[in-house]
């Protein structure tokens, strides 16, 4: 899968409370969650973001609460992919589980600036800054994660395992 879009750049330790404030967690509707995405640190984000755009952030992206509403809100806001220097562990799991593509690539984070056109090739891990004509190599996912992603996420993986066990 290849994504291409404009960069929206954030610093380090972007927490899930700013990705989607808890005051909006009385719903699970993706569109409603998306309408408040990032509003406490970047009030113009939702209005500015275009389908396919890419969030680029520093270390520890998604720290704090376990709320899966965070990756859901980012994806529903139109973001195609998040490139970060590192991810908080629960957010990392949640992104994989909900189908929000994420890439760990500190060099791309250091190089890319807000507004740059970025291309991310998930299969090869190659991140290209088209504006600056620079290419970076992202970290590969562990084999187990690649299998999960290939099966369409955690629940299809578990469902297949249980169905298989039931058939025997």
């Amino acid at each position, binding site marked *: 899968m290849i994504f291409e879009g404009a960069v929206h750049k954030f610093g380090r330790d972007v927490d899930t409370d700013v990705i989607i404030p808890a005051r909006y*967690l009385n719903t699970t509707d993706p569109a409603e969650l998306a309408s408040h995405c990032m509003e406490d640190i970047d009030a113009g984000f939702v209005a500015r973001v275009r389908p396919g755009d890419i969030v680029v952030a520093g270390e520890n992206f998604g720290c704090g609460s376990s709320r899966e509403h965070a990756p859901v809100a980012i994806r529903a806001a139109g973001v195609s992919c998040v490139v970060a220097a590192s991810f908080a562990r629960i957010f990392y799991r949640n992104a994989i*589980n909900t189908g929000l593509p994420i890439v760990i690539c500190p060099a791309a984070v250091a190089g890319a600036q807000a507004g740059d056109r970025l291309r991310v090739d998930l299969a090869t891990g190659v991140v290209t800054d088209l504006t600056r004509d620079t290419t970076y190599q992202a970290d590969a996912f562990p084999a187990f994660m690649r299998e999960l992603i290939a099966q369409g996420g955690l629940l299809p993986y578990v469902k297949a395992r249980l169905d298989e066990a039931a058939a025997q």
Partner: protein
Amino acid sequence: MGHTIVEKILARAGGRAEVSPGDIVEARVDLALANDVTAPLAIDEFEKAGFTKVFDPTKIALVPDHFTPNKDIKAASQNKRMREFARRHDIAHYWEVGRVGIEHVLLPEQGLVAPGDVVIGADSHTCTYGALAAFSTGVGSTDFAAAMAWGRVWLRVPETIRFVYHGRPSRYVGGKDLMLHTIGLIGVDGALYQAMEFTGPAIKRMSVAGRFTMCNMAIEAGAKCGVVGYDETTAAYLQGRPAGSRARDGGVEANSDPDAAFVREIEIDAAAVEPTVSLPHLASNTAPAASLAGITIDQVVIGSCTNGRLEDLRQAAELLRGRKVHPDVRLIILPGTQQVCLDAAADGTMAALIEAGGAFSTPTCGPCLGGHMGVLAEGERAVATTNRNFVGRMGHPASEVYLASPYVAAASAIAGHIATPEMVDAAGVSSGAPDGGRRGVSGGGRS
């Protein structure tokens, strides 16, 4: 080669002779929990994936604690969805308002966690139960949904950082101060993907309540879990609780081997740690409370899953008994469970807090995450014994949260500004506001 507690628990739960950091295990789950914010999303996913049956209704807990008593119609609808699911699937551990408590205080109190258990929860502070020598970690709603169906969870075996706390903490220093100090030392991602094992003489002497507080905040350093080895303090806590009889091998195995490999070892002199405060907007932004006396406050919150146990409320009452909350300050008490309420009523703690001018709430996560029951307005400041001070955490994005212990929170409620218990003691009994109740201009400190 020996193994850490976490490696031993995950090896057994994963059906392996032994595991090493980096291994992926599919661990059997002893308890899976979710709350009224995370469960509805999990139920949606569970049903969408075509699951019709939970793996074991006695190993699932659904806890309506975040926006309860229902704060608005949407929250009421979410709770209704969770309640109906709990009834339909015969979920053993579900409580209504009036019996429910804050999940991470309630579940151990009910005896649902034993040493050696694997606990996952769709709530990041699930790491609390490491205080009972269990492996417990926060996950998202989809992981919880999968665990409800499967009874297992995939986990990467974490490296363990060993923290050794030497010495005896001073009079007003507890688990909260040691943990804030530790996060200040290593940073909010200082233990990312790793386990934090708390050891040393100061931990050995620490109550289970203090250990719960420390493990609760392991996530604030990015950790997968916090853990304290099984000892006589754990045994005493488990005495008479259902989990007590479940502790495998008497719990003794839930300790790291003497030759276990740690990725890092950090030694801390607990005697040198001062009452500590985390300033906005990161838990790692720490300073001694004594250095922050110029900062005036509007609200104090004492309680939550971090510090909502009887011992915490007693510490607050120790300072507030016979004194008054500053006229400009709103003090809100969030007890962890109904049992904590009853115990606090029985021993005079509740009366002391109410007589001082505090509002005693029903158990709820409430204002900790800016939900309800004490949300902050623009420009307002709170001292809270909760666990997070991110932008907008307790309300308006331009409000501020200072994290502290129950002692520092109570002292601050009396003083009207961030204060240490020693400052309140030095000011004598009664109000604690030396200028007769109004804060002096010089003490303003608003910026």
